[in-house]
């Protein structure tokens, strides 16, 4: 996976699989401090300390269909090679928080990629979950919370073409409005 947004999708899918009813995603690009921070926080079933150790082991997965899972260990290695880190805090029965940070300008840092597609995919395909998403670039913030939308829709599916169009534009425009341009190009 050569895109941080794909890793983000993967981590959030872990939260979905952990039975979370609430998932908070934060993506914070601080150009000023030269950091790129991503976190996924959930109220899923959580993990004990031993399991946390194991999920960072490339030869562990909680899945029973296959013996290896490589999502988190590879991302941790990628973060550490860019003056960053990946940490997991978790309490059984309470939830899990995965935090990742990179040096924003590091030559080896993966691009953030298509954040809008990742958020849209999550919100559409797991509508039972309360999603709180925050995308921040220095002092500018885009917040997305699906709960007011779900309440307003009262059971109309998110895949209704008009609803889908509304959601896609809301998320895409919200992100585009604050997304920094590639380095070297000024606004």
């Amino acid at each position, binding site marked *: 996976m050569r895109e941080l947004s794909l890793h983000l999708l993967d981590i959030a899918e872990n939260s979905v699989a952990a039975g979370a009813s609430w998932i908070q995603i934060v993506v914070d690009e601080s150009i000023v401090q030269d950091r790129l921070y991503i976190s996924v926080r959930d109220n899923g079933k959580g993990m004990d300390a031993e399991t946390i150790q194991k999920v960072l082991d490339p030869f562990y997965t909680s899945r029973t269909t296959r013996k290896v899972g490589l999502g988190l260990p590879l991302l941790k290695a990628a973060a550490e090679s860019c003056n960053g880190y990946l940490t997991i805090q978790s309490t059984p029965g309470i939830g899990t928080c995965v935090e990742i940070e990179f040096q924003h300008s590091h030559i080896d840092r993966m691009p953030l990629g298509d954040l809008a597609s990742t958020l849209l995919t999550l919100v559409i395909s797991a509508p039972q979950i309360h999603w709180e998403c925050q995308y921040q670039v220095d002092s500018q913030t885009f917040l997305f919370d699906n709960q007011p939308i779900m309440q307003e829709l009262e059971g*109309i599916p998110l895949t209704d073409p008009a609803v889908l169009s509304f959601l896609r534009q*809301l998320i895409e425009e919200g992100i585009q409005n604050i997304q920094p341009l590639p380095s070297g190009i000024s606004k």
Partner: protein
Amino acid sequence: MPTVKSLEDLKRIREEALQKRQVKAASGEANIVVAMGTCGIAAGAREAMKAILNLIETENIPGIIVTQTGCIGLCEREPIVQVQVGEQPKVTYGKVTPEIARRIVKEHVVEGKIIEDHVIPM
């Protein structure tokens, strides 16, 4: 400056959707499930999902529910998309590129023709 979407817009969309729903309640709903395990995501599940959502939006196709599932144990055939139209049996597709994803919606869901070349026998 792009338009800011508000809940007022959503209210109007909801009213329209409710009216359309009453008209087409007879035709069965279609379910599309995209496998979103690590294997699926790495193989391009998000792009398949995006292609499906994009077609629903641009062609204005109602009555399709799109959800996700985890790894189903066929990692080498990801991205995997499962389709069920009404009461018909579920069909599993493998190696679903964005182009095949669009064909699944157009040919299978809308026209009722299964794309045999890409079916995984279950």
